[in-house]
């Protein structure tokens, strides 16, 4: 009899708790709680991610460093050559020309857009209000076969082809673990403009008390991390645009 009662109560509890409405902030708090705690996230000064990029049957080793003050650099290794592929020192964004392998500055729009994104570190949702971002819980939806909370993130507008455009993306947080499993964002330029690019994120693992996804896949490529280092020591010169010396200019 009492066993039956407790089963019934458990059943009722199970039903009522699942009806408990969540707000976007509760979901985000849960997310940070479940991935190491807000304090640990806030303490981060830099993140180095080492892994391979898989695309079109190729595996390209890469390393990415991003810092709290908005600097970032991507280093890749192609056919035994290790090189900085793209970087941003907070002011100047640049990447390598694929024909000459020389560094060239990004166009001013791309640089400005990147500057605005600097505050994303280490996670756009961390203290999002201070960043001037807004979030909205759209509802529950099934993605990747999994029930998820769909949260809309609106960041500062970006400029594309001379026009300011809203910068909206949607994150799907697994209702079981409260971590993002899918990110959807609009393609801003080119022939696929207006279409939605979907990234699937998984293989969350702990790194010094903080959980990071070790795999990020979209329709074009997969990033698979072997190692994530927190607060790495980096020579800041690596972020800067390599100005040519007078001698090099003569060449």
């Amino acid at each position, binding site marked *: 009899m009492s066993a039956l009662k407790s089963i019934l109560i458990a059943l009722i509890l199970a039903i009522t708790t699942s009806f408990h409405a969540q707000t976007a902030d509760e979901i985000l708090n849960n997310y940070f709680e479940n991935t190491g705690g807000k304090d640990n996230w806030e303490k981060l000064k830099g993140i180095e991610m080492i892994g391979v990029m898989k695309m079109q049957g190729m595996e390209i080793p890469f390393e990415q460093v991003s810092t709290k003050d908005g600097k970032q650099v991507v280093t890749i290794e192609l056919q035994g050559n290790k090189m900085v592929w793209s970087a941003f020192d907070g002011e100047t964004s640049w990447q390598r020309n694929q024909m000459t392998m020389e560094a060239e500055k990004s166009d001013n729009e791309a640089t400005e857009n990147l500057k605005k994104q600097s505050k994303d570190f280490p996670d756009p949702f961390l203290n999002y209000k201070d960043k001037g971002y807004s979030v909205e819980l759209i509802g529950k939806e099934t993605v990747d076969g999994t029930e998820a909370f769909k949260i*809309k993130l609106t960041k500062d507008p970006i400029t594309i082809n001379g026009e300011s455009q*809203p910068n909206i993306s949607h994150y799907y947080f697994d209702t079981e673990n409260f971590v993002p499993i899918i990110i959807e964002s609009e393609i801003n330029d080119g022939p696929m403009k207006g279409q939605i690019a979907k990234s699937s994120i*998984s293989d969350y693992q702990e790194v010094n008390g903080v959980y990071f996804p070790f795999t990020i896949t979209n329709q074009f490529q997969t990033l698979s991390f072997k190692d994530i280092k927190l607060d790495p020591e980096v020579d800041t010169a690596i972020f800067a645009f390599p100005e040519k010396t007078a001698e090099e200019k003569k060449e």
Partner: protein
Amino acid sequence: MNKKIIFGALSILFSMSMHSQEIVLKGKELFGNLEARQIGPALMSGRIIDLENHPTNSRILYVGTAGGGVWKSSNGGASFAPIFDKHAQSIGVVAVDPSDPDNTIWVGTGEIWTRNSVSIGDGLYKSTDGGANWKKMGFEKSERISSIEINPKNSNEIYVAVLGALWGDSEERGIYKTIDGGKTWNKILYTNEKTGASDLIMDPTNPNILYASMWEFRRTAWGFNSGGANSALYKSTDAGKTWNKIHNGFPKGDLGRFAIAVAPSNPKIVYAVVESKEDKGLYRSDDAGASWKLLNSDFELVVRPFYFSRVVVDPKNPDVLIKGGFLGSISRDGGKTFKALTPLTGPLKLHPDIHDVVFDINNSDRLYVGTDGGVYRSWDSAGTFDMVDNLPLSQFYHISVDNDEPYNIYGGLQDNGSWWGPSSSPGGIEARDWNPVGVGDGFRVLRHPTKRIIYSEMQGAQNVWRYDMDKNYTKNIQPLPIKGEADLRFNWNAPMAISNHQPDRFYMGSQFLHVSEDMGDNWKKISPDLTTNDPAKQDKESGGISTDKSGAETHTTIFTIAESPLDEKIIWVGTDDGNVQITQDGGKTWTNTVENIQGLPKNTWVYHIEASSHKKGTAYAVFDGHASGDMNTYVYKTSDFGKTWTSIVTDDIVGFARNIQEDYVNEDLLFLGTEFGLFITINGGKNWSRFTNNMPAAAVHFIDLQKRTNDLVMGTHGRGAIIIDDISPLRQINQEVLAKEVHFFETKPAIIKEESGFGGGSTELQFVGDNPNTAAKIIYYLKKRHTFGKMTLSIQDQEGNEVVSLTPGKAKGINIVDWNFRKKAPKVAAGKTFTFGGFTSPRVSEGTYKVVLKKGKKEFTSSIIVKNDPESLITSQERIAQQNAAKQLFDGMEDLAYLVYKIDQNIKKAENLSKNDPASSKISTSAIDELTKLKETLVVTTGDNYVNEAEPQLREKLSEIYAEVTNQFEKPSFSQLENIDVLQKQIDEAKAAFEKINAKQVAKLNKYLEKTNGKPTEILDKAKFLSK
């Protein structure tokens, strides 16, 4: 008493736990990453209902379509992307909030140009983020919304015009108003349950002034009526509180549909096109509707008001106006005279049937036109037009496939003829891959099972074509009435069928079933009139005020024919007036079995009958009552030749159904097409799941299943052909599978296709349909999505050596991972630039490979069989020769890479030393010089990847032939073998040269280092280097 309660509770618990044994997965949980592929075509596009521009940003444009949802352009109409895929795809109106135009957009669903084939909407939607998310704002039963007007000074004050139900009475019609942004609505103008609001316009300078047109109209399956005593034009000057009829100058008597427009640059000028028996035409008012004057009654202005009732005035010039119509027409003198937008003869400038026009907000020379065949742009005020090539809105009535390799897809389109095109094409499925096979409206298109012959037709079987694909020769083969017998009644979408047993046998249905044994040359009737032959439903004078005799309303006809795949004597016939007839003796005797169906309203249209390929007595019948106002889903199954029927409909299904497809292997696997998408059952109809992976909620009119590939091919009415490649995993799902943590599905052996060629010449603004993936597929089911911890998927040879590591799918449900038959690419020698051949990975040879999936500490294994192309022309010896040569070159690439690595390590060491220890200069410099000299012959050390390319060195030459031999499907040629020999010799010489330097200069260097307590150069052994 107490005991009873406990017992009751126990039995509830018991039944709950019994119930929970059954694992039921719905929708995305079941389908995981199984995705649909949208292949268009877009070259003829489809019907457009409404165009809407942004009030201040000329780059942004919205298109509301008849059956393909809402599309948005943010580059001035160059390209479009769909933004409304999850909702009803039939659109009546799109409106942008003038106070918040970047974000707030309203969509009224349900097309308003009410031809016979229109779909339905399901209410009003609002987005507050430019179309990223949508919220339903009521009007679920409205069926069609014609206008949305928003007060430019107050976003919360909105008026909605509901045209309402087309096939029945409805009180959800008229003008509605909200003052709280759509939370609550008040009906502020209503006539009766037969009369809807067909248009609503707000004075652009005064939001309290509104013009509303009311239209009495009704469609049945056999007729259409436009007009009546209640059609009227109203005006309000007090924000909708009171309305007055403004007919001063209009004809008396019954009226039909109005087209109305207010000139934005002078709101005193109002245009109205009036449908009437007398004095119909364009009226103009220069006093804001107080009085009207008839200006013009040209054909283009008055043609088919139910289909064309849009007038648009140039925003800058009140005397320039465009009226939608068959060809559309433009006036530049305030409506006195008109010129057609496109000539009727010669090359058309536009697809005919013009439904809407918008002018660019800044430059009236630029305008956009929505037609039955997509959107057109003009830059010179309708002088010339250019079609938008990336709107895949084609509206299939029917679809079928053949058995070619790759198989082809056949189907007919609303007002866009009949077509066939490939399911796969080099570079993607492009516009040029599609071939026309009929004109007018296209419906059913069937390929002869053994010959290069296609059957196609146009509306009402006015033509039934037999097309010889090789001779490019067409013959009209329609069945003709026989002397002394009744006239034939063919449906607008007349049924045809090919026998499963006699390739040349061809069936067509009028009210009789006709059969031909010689591909349509000669015909025989094998049935009496199988319809109700109800004269009340044989209306010859359709249209109402404007007679509209197109044959589209011909009723009491046969609509579907199904010969049993198991017995040619068994033929099912379904009629549009609700008969389900069967013969079991090849047409000698017929039985109407519809009386045996419970719960089905009388005379409900039999849309499709599917004769089972598993049992002779089994069939499925799909009924569609929408043309009598009944939007319910009706799907029945019989297992005894129609003596008894059982409904297999559940609440999971949304929308009335039109088509069902039975799987050829698992009889419990069924695919159902409804007005709102695709539904799948894996248990014979106990539960249904909506398929939404890259599948919009478009109306699925017909489904076919390709037997060889197991591809499900859908003909949608608004989003073209949509394919789900290989549905075979769905056949294998059962309770045992669903209970497993990981389950690998059985797959057919993967074939290495021996193909290489060119394709893809479309511009970036032309739609290109994706090809199916020809890679090997590893397909598995995951009980739960993988989110935490490592998960890897490795292909291994039989000894367990890793061939390649793949990116595993991690979704709950079905995951499909592609493998392109390639191993890892070689390690390439480091140079200044890239060598493109070095990115080539070798193919595996045929055989069985292990599939190892690791999830955390758990390991799950399966295997995959890889086979050579059965079409291949090369022998196994030749194949071995190719593989050996490729292997030798692969090893050569890696030998060279290791050699260059050793050189580089030594140079680095020497350079460091010379920098830090000037005394070493002689030793280090001589090592550097010798090593660099050797290296320069091995890899390029200067130049770039483009026009400043350096002279190729050994690496470049080697990688070029390596890639060539690796990719080819032939034995190496003699010149290739000779070239390999030459390069191999160079590698060997280089190795020897290095050893010489190593023994001399490098040894000296190391000795010096030892002496000065430095460390000798660190060199990894080869295996370590290669695995680095």
